[in-house]
């Protein structure tokens, strides 16, 4: 008989908190006691303050313990052997935890539960059911995705179905599916988690996309800062190929589709879709002017579907349960669910997937539990380095593409970074400009030059030099960048800058302190 099964997450968050060392310690604790165990390196459930969170499979379901440190291994292991017994770190059945109970997990249904490297496990947990439906009626895929209301989860929120339809209708000798896994926004990690915790769902989504538009080759462009995600994706692709789910005959059908992982090289701008395509082609990651759209002339000049990880990973459940099921969640024109990432100075950080419509206050105060420093929340940045800073006064904003746009913000890739009252918003505005200057691809002037002038102008304001005049210059500069830049890097950098200025004017109006800080 096989021994008890113990789950030690292989997700980067757990690993960065010591999970690899724990896995080794558990193995040696078992061998000392001559107990037969099986260690599964699952993904993370998304309750990151509890990581590394270990689980044991019992006849009454899985029981979790966390956050486990090396010194706890012996006692936690004993509790596990006792069938999920008492321990000060015992969390209980993870699915009963309020943080998970409150969620609607569609895209992340399997993350943290399955063995990410096991094709059999994926299939046992409803994997490849979407593909089966897709293969039963390939001509209906594009329409089903369009009907679901799914919008690009990378940040732009463009309807996925329309993108696919354009590529499906294009005539060419070759077409490509490209997955944008260049998740560079600070405060976001959902792409990483799904690739490390449930890679087959992304493979399935890309396969469905290939069949829908007539593409036989796909690329997953993953940033080099994600070595664990790259390793899991490569293993999963190999397993899918061996299992007949990729290759010349996908799942025994007449459709061919295969995938390749490509590693980025540390350029934030390559998260912009056209810069990503340039990078895949082996060039500098310079943004392309649009038109032509990637759907017409994308990778190597061929029609290309380029979608974010989460958009593609959501397609299988849309196909499996149907467009109406998915569309039933959400509000307004934001349909379905969004995997929201709670980060920064927050007591309960992690991954929270829920239907659109939840307010910022619920996310930050109720679910996130406020700052771990115990100080009041001053500002939250939503949507990464290009997203606006929101003050408490706007915490009633519902999580919805249009609601955020109406308040001069964006939900972007769904990351929320929380700051306590020690944050200096003028410094954050300067950082936004600095970041844009460092990461600008240099192709368009508003971004390349504007960001550097922006840093200088914010610094003048911080030094108290002709404050009124320089605030007017900064506002004008932001306007030029917003409307004159080629892509969202230069175009959206004004969001954090102007929101900081608008909502936290006092931080720009204090006594000169830049010299003191330098």
């Amino acid at each position: 008989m096989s021994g008890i099964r113990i789950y030690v997450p292989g997700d980067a968050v757990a690993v960065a908190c010591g999970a690899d060392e724990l896995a080794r310690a558990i193995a040696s604790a078992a061998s000392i006691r001559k107990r037969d165990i099986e260690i599964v390196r699952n993904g993370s459930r998304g309750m990151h303050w509890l990581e590394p969170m270990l689980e044991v499979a019992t006849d009454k379901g899985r029981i979790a313990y966390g956050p486990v440190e090396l010194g706890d291994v012996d006692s936690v292991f004993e509790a596990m052997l006792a069938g999920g017994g008492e321990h000060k770190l015992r969390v209980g059945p993870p699915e009963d935890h309020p943080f998970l109970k409150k969620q609607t997990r569609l895209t992340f249904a399997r993350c943290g539960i399955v063995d990410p490297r096991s094709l059999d496990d994926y299939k046992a947990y409803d994997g490849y059911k979407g593909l089966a439906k897709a293969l039963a009626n390939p001509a209906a895929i594009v329409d089903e995705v369009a009907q679901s209301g799914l919008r690009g989860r990378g940040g732009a929120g463009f309807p996925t179905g329309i993108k696919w339809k354009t590529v499906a209708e294009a005539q060419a000798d070759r077409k490509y599916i490209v997955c944008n896994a260049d998740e560079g926004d600070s405060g976001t990690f959902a792409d990483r988690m799904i690739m490390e915790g449930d890679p087959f769902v992304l493979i399935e989504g890309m396969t469905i996309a290939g069949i829908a538009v007539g593409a036989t080759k796909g690329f997953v462009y993953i940033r080099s800062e994600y070595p664990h995600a790259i390793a899991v994706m490569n293993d999963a692709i190999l397993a899918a190929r061996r299992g007949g789910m990729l290759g010349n005959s996908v799942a025994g059908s007449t459709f061919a589709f295969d995938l390749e992982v490509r590693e980025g090289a540390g350029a934030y701008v390559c998260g912009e879709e056209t810069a990503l395509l340039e990078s895949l082609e082996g060039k500098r990651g310079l943004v392309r002017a649009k038109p032509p759209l990637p759907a017409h002339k994308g990778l190597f000049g061929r029609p290309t579907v380029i979608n974010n990880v989460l958009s593609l990973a959501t397609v299988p459940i849309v196909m499996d349960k149907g467009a109406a099921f998915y569309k039933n969640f959400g509000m307004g024109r934001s349909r379905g669910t969004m995997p929201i990432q709670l980060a920064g100075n927050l007591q309960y950080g992690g991954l929270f997937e829920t239907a659109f419509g939840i307010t910022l206050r619920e996310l930050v105060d109720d679910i996130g539990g406020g700052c771990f420093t115990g100080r009041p929340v001053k500002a939250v940045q939503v949507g990464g380095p290009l997203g606006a800073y929101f003050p408490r006064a706007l915490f009633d904003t519902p999580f919805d593409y249009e609601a955020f746009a109406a308040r001069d913000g964006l939900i972007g890739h769904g990351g929320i970074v929380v700051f306590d009252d020690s944050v200096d918003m003028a410094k954050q505005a300067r950082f936004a400009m600095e970041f844009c200057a460092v990461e600008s691809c240099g192709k368009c002037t508003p971004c390349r030059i504007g960001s550097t002038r922006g840093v200088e102008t914010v610094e003048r304001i911080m030094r108290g030099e002709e404050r009124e005049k320089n605030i007017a210059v900064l506002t004008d500069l932001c306007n030029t960048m917003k409307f004159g830049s080629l892509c969202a890097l230069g175009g959206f950098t004004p969001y954090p800058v102007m929101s900081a200025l608008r909502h936290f004017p006092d931080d720009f109006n204090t006594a000169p302190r830049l010299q003191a800080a330098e």
Partner: protein
Amino acid sequence: MERAAQILAEHRGTEGPLLPILHAIQETFGYVPENAVAIIAEALNLSRAEVHGVVTFYHDFRQEPAGRHVLKLCRAEACQAAGGDALAARAEERLGVRFGGTTKDGRVRLEPVYCLGLCSVSPSAMIDGRIVARIDDKKLDALLAETDR
């Protein structure tokens, strides 16, 4: 440069091969040597300027050897929110170098990184490819001590 030629041969038939080749070169040599640029350009029918342009565009590619250890500290917003700036200042002070610099003895290179995707357990860092989260002063000092080896 025999190894470089071998890497080029391994990538024959790859679509858009330049980035995978540069990654493999850096993996092998620790940086992208000047003479490798010429060989790559020749093999891919590109000008040396084009290859040089790609090498210098991406933060990952180095044109000179790094220190024996590379410490990357995340400087992005989620880590700033959790005390990342103070940690960064401490690392600079302890090592006596600024970000982007290598200690005089070639022991360690300090680099900024903009997000490791560990934003819920910030501040975070990567040392010689290994990721570490929830860093405080004590943990940072332990990481710096590792570079003494």
